[in-house]
């Protein structure tokens, strides 16, 4: 039996386009523009969903996405909001969180045992005896949740854009549209957003049976669309408010992050359900929902409908129902009297009106799928009593309810607006708005249509003035006439099942009982009852919860206050929020070469570095050993372009280095290199590096890859404080570096440069500037990985040229590339500790025996004063070089295995590796000071618990341990 009615002016349907779809296996048709819910209702279906906790049958409540009565799945997506999701050809839909079918949900038995499940029941049971809890938890977990996630759902890329406007208007109802038009007229760029598919708000459906408002809406829309400095976004919602007027606008396409100079909130109000027994039955719906059904989708809510109201709005709903062809059985008004004009009009239509009455309970049809009638009785408005002495029943197949409103104030709250409860309209309205925020319309407590239009003008002028343009500022508008909201639209019933929160199946008695147990503070009550914690975030329940608590505690509503509003206004998809997701990374100019030569890459900071170059099928360790052997026996070449590189120009360069690092640099000769160690103020080792003096007033620093950016940043900060006469230049990306190391390094390099490479002319720890393969290079001689190492620093884009030249001439000398992992082994063989590997966030220089690098007699350096303190304190641990037994064959210890003595941890391995060249396992470990003497031994515990003896030796391992 269809409830579809004749075409309504302004309806959202395209009746020429039929849509075929399935719901729970039943084939149905709809029109293009129908939402899933409107299509199902038109088809005469009423049980469209099941509730979260008790699995009660549910139908339409708001038809505005302000509740989650109807969540469906199409087999791909889940928890789809049927109220607003358009039905499309071929959809195969079913309700979520049901067992069997939505009509005959096997879990609906839970409703009948609900007395066993009082508020917060899960705190009160299942935990004793302890061992049984996992059993109960398993059952409870199964019952939890709504839809089932589809693990094959594709990763969807949604576009996220930053946009900017002068004025953002939230809500395209009468007041919002008016405000947007006015602001645009003043020459401001305006964005106006509305969550509905079409603009207009209540102007589109709140008609009291008269289509005049449609023309009014069209006129408003024409004005707005005539302004090309207005962007109108429909089917888009403002998801939240973030500092400095940043508001993400979410649509199916993605997110537009709007940065506005001013914001006008004209978001309207949510209609609030009156609370009575079985107010959640299918076919008991909000008045505004009935109106939306009629005027947006051309669907008649009921055949014989009853209207329960506690304001004048219900009378307008009744007139709309009549217009739609619903027989209005009666209007039941909880107030003493209703609006005279509406009353007269309805009586004309032969509608019976019961003032001072309430619906005591709704009566379910035999199969509980709908309503068969309502029990009516007199209602004592003052004392909130249902006078059941002469109650009577009216037959009907549906109930439209209108008891009042609560402002859609979420974003106002999030922006820090001061809200005050206004007893004239029984609603929280803004009392103190933050800079650049304005409110208009119902959210501002203005309900009469003419007044809402004026309020839009007023708010727009206020915003225009705020943005520094001329505008007439007018006084706030105050509501006149009867209150749009009832102070306490709640009908007590001894048997309960009078629902306040439809998401979470919370009844009046749950609040009473929660208060009894001491949860009589709104925040505690929220947490204990879970009111407002469901997917609709209390849009239809928070206000009634506050009223109930106020009554329980016998306090005025504003003394109860509200719970904190948090983003999001509507649940927002992870894919939307995530967007594209950027993963920035840096490549050296040799990246392609490494790639084609089979390098395995490792991430170091933002950089991708070649770690080692395994031959096909070669194991990591073998590759590393082979590369290391090449360096020891012939020559190896490494791309060190990711090193941090910093230039210090100017007369005070040396002075700066002496203050910033631990060493001495004023006496450093031009052409010489010196070690750099950086501490923090507490004396902890941060990083190290090399300073090459290229001229009296020019130093070239190379430092570790991972810290480079941070170190340079700190140098800039200290320069700001010290104001020395120098310039800092970060050339990390501008220069690349190639290290060539090993016995043949010199001869290979010599073929490409005229530079005298002899030890006499160019000893270790020196720097020279010369052409290498025709490229101007800074050549630094180091002993980090081998005492025959030359580091060539050349412009990044010319690194490949030099590299190719070296590879070409190096071929016959057995030159081969090595990666950063091999470099770690090589430096270990040389006995060099590495910050970040052999140190942690608390290591001081004494603990790594780096006293030699600390020049305490300087006037000042960062960390000096703390070292002076640390020097007086006993050393707790120290890093020592160690070897394992000759041809050790047990389980290989790993980095971070512990050094154990008896029952105690006395240290930890920081680096350990087998060295094929040395023919032994070598490493560094922290041990207690009594274990640091040459030759002393300690035990390392392996992953599997065996103890391995290690012996302290001297560095470099290379010389001392080779065939030791």
């Amino acid at each position, binding site marked *: 039996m269809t409830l579809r009615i004749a075409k309504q002016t302004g309806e959202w349907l395209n009746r020429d386009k039929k849509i075929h779809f399935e719901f729970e296996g039943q084939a149905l048709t709809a029109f293009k523009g129908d939402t899933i819910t409107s299509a199902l209702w038109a088809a005469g279906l009423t049980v469209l969903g099941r509730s979260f906790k008790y699995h009660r049958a549910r139908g339409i409540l708001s038809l505005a996405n302000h509740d989650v009565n109807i969540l469906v799945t199409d087999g791909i997506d889940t928890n789809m909001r049927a109220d607003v999701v358009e039905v499309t050809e071929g959809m195969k839909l079913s309700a979520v969180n049901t067992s069997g079918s939505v009509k005959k949900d096997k879990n609906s038995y839970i409703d009948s045992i609900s007395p066993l499940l009082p508020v917060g029941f899960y705190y009160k049971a299942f935990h004793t005896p302890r061992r049984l809890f996992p059993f109960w938890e398993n059952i409870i977990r199964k019952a939890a949740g709504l839809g089932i996630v589809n693990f094959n759902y594709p990763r969807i890329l949604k576009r996220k854009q930053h946009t900017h406007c002068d004025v953002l208007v939230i809500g395209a109802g009468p007041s919002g549209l008016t405000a947007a038009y006015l602001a645009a007229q003043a020459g401001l760029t305006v964005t106006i957003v509305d969550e509905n598919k079409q603009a207009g708000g209540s102007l589109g459906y709140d008609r009291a049976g008269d289509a005049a408002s449609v023309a009014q809406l069209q006129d408003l829309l024409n004005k707005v669309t005539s302004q090309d400095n207005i962007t109108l976004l429909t089917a888009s919602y403002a998801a939240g408010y973030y500092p400095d007027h940043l508001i993400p606008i979410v649509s199916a396409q993605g997110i537009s992050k709007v940065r506005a100079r001013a914001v006008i909130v004209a978001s309207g109000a949510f209609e609030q359900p009156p609370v009575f027994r079985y107010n959640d039955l299918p076919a008991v719906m909000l008045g505004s929902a009935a109106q939306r059904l009629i005027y947006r989708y051309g669907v008649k809510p009921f055949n014989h409908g009853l209207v329960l109201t506690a304001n004048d709005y219900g009378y307008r709903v009744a007139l709309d129902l009549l217009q739609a062809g619903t027989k209005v059985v009666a209007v039941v008004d909880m107030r003493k009297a209703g609006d005279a004009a509406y009353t007269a009009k309805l009586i004309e239509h032969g509608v019976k009106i019961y003032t001072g009455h309430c619906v005591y309970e709704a009566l379910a049809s035999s199969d509980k799928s709908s309503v068969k009638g309502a029990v009516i009785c007199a209602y004592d408005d003052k004392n909130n009593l249902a006078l059941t002495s002469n109650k009577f029943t009216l037959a009907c197949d549906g109930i439209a309810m209108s008891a009042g409103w609560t402002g859609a104030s979420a974003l106002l709250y999030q922006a820090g607006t001061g809200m005050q409860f206004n007893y004239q309209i029984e609603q929280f309205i803004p009392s103190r708005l933050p800079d650049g925020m304005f409110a208009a319309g119902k959210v501002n407590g203005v309900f009469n249509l003419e007044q809402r239009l004026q309020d839009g003008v007023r708010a727009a002028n206020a915003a225009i003035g705020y943005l520094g343009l001329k505008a007439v500022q007018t006084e706030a508008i105050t509501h006149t006439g009867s209150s749009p909201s009832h102070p306490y639209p709640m009908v007590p019933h001894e048997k309960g099942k009078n629902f306040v929160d439809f998401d979470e199946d919370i009844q009046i008695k749950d609040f009473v009982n929660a208060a009894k147990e001491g949860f009589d503070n709104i925040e505690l009550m929220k947490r204990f009852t879970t009111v407002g914690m469901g997917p609709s975030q209390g849009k239809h329940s928070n206000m009634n919860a506050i009223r109930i608590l106020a009554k329980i505690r016998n306090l005025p509503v504003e003394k109860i206050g509200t719970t904190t509003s948090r983003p*999001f206004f509507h649940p927002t998809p992870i894919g939307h929020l995530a967007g594209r997701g950027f993963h920035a990374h840096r490549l050296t100019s040799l990246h392609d070469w490494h790639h084609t030569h089979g390098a395995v890459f490792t991430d170091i900071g933002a950089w991708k570095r070649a770690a080692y170059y395994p031959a096909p099928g070669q194991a990591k360790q073998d590759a590393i050993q082979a590369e290391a052997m090449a360096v020891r026996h012939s020559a190896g070449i490494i791309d060190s372009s990711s090193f941090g590189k910093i230039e210090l120009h100017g007369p005070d360069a040396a002075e700066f280095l002496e203050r910033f690092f631990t060493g001495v640099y004023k006496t450093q000769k031009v052409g010489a290199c010196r070690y750099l160690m950086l501490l923090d103020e507490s004396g902890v080792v941060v990083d190290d590096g090399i300073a090459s003096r290229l001229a009296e007033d020019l130093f070239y620093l190379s430092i570790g890859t991972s810290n480079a950016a941070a170190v340079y940043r700190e140098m800039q900060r200290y320069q700001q404080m010290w104001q020395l006469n120098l310039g800092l230049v970060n050339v990390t990306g501008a220069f690349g570096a190639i290290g060539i190391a090993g016995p043949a390094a010199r001869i290979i390099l010599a073929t490409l440069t005229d530079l005298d490479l002899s030890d006499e002319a160019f000893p270790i720890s020196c720097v020279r500037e010369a052409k290498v393969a025709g490229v101007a290079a800074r050549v630094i001689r180091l002993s980090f990985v081998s005492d025959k190492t030359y580091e060539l620093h050349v412009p990044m884009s010319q690194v490949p040229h030099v590299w190719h030249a070296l590879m070409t001439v190096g071929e016959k000398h057995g030159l081969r590339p090595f990666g950063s992992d091999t470099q770690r082994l090589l430096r270990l063989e040389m006995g060099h500790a590495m910050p970040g590997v052999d140190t942690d966030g608390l290591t001081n220089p004494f603990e790594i025996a780096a006293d030699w690098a600390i020049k305490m007699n300087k006037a000042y350096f960062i960390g000096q004063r703390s070292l002076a303190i640390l020097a007086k*304190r006993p050393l707790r641990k120290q890093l020592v070089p160690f070897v394992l037994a000759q041809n050790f064959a047990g389980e290989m210890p790993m980095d*971070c295995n512990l050094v154990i003595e008896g029952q105690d941890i006395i240290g930890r391995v920081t680096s350990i590796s087998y060295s094929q060249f040395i023919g032994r396992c070598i490493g560094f470990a922290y041990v207690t000071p009594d274990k640091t003497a040459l030759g002393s031994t300690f035990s390392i515990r392996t992953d599997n618990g065996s103890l391995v003896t290690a012996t302290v030796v001297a560095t470099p391992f290379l010389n001392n341990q080779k065939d030791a």
Partner: protein
Amino acid sequence: MPLRLLKYALSKEHPAPRFFKAHETPKKSYDVVIIGGGGHGLAAAYYLAKDHGITNVAVLEKGYIGGGNTGRNTTIVRSNYLTPEGVNFYDASVKIYEGLSEELDLNLFYSTRGHFTLAHTESAIRTMRWRAEVNKHVGVESRVVGPDEIAKACPQLDLSCSGQAPILGALFHAPGSVARHDGVAWGYARGADRLGAEIFQNTEVLSIDVKNGKVCGVKTNKGYIETKQVLSAVAGFTPRITEMVGLETPIVIHPLQACVTEPMKPWLDSILVSGSLHVYVSQSSRGELVMGSSLDPYEVHSTRSTLDFVEGLTSHMLDMFPFLSNVKVVRQWAGMADMTPDFAPIMGKTPIEGFYLDAGWGTWGFKATPISGKTMAQTIANDSAPDLIHSFRLSRFEDYELTGEKGAASVGH
């Protein structure tokens, strides 16, 4: 269905009494005043009474109980720390948690699910072996596991993280659990109340009286209270309290944010943490994914939410679970964290006689609730801190003896 629920069905009047009395105005004096009605303060009150028979105690809460970080955290309980001191301390906490539902006769939904700290880099694996070895040494079940074991526990996880940060392994911590955070506060509140402690909500401390180095009273918006012992257990607000007694600490406040999705049928059984992706996630008994990330990068005394947080977090969530594209985030929120330079708490006595600190809880306060209550109660009762919390003493900073937890910070929470 357990029988103990029957009484609710059978009795007309809701049979459950108040969890705790609604005290309005404090008495003239108390033996101990506890500032902060969160999990820690209430636990301290409970153990003062239970373990030490000290019941003349007032708990002063500026707002409502459990309304601070107790009610804002992501409820993860674990003990896989880096230093033996840390592991011992949190292990003791885990042990109490395991029996707490029974002890407090309140179901805290303490649920042991196993905790994986994912490693995407070699250096992360190093840190995890370090933690695993220390844990093992102290007798806590943690070990470094490979991708296959992770896949077994969470088949839905994309081990390549969409190719962005392939998972090389993880630190598996068997005792890793979640619990119902509000319940912990309420359970301790009820326990303390029944043993005689008095809980005052909406009661703000305005100043603390110190005469020649000794605490002698507390001024509140509900009048003056004489006392010789004051415990500050106000993570997120510690600097405001220490300022009242002129005590300097290293604590700075950074917000820590979290968010939660719509309920869905449970599928994620383990607790997952990724240091490099700044994500930690578990699925609640309601079916929501509860997600958190790293601290906000700058000091602010506010629980405001930011969009960057939820954008970054969801982007990384999708790297791990690409199929969540259309799962919806319902709500985001934030708490204020007491941060210390060495990522360890500050507990015990202070230079001011009778003023005790339970602070510096950073992002790990919830998991310590029972043991901090117990040890602080001990500290107050004996006016001396037990060895278990010696390394967390305030004086460690002046002594340059910071705890070593910093090394594991990248994989916090």
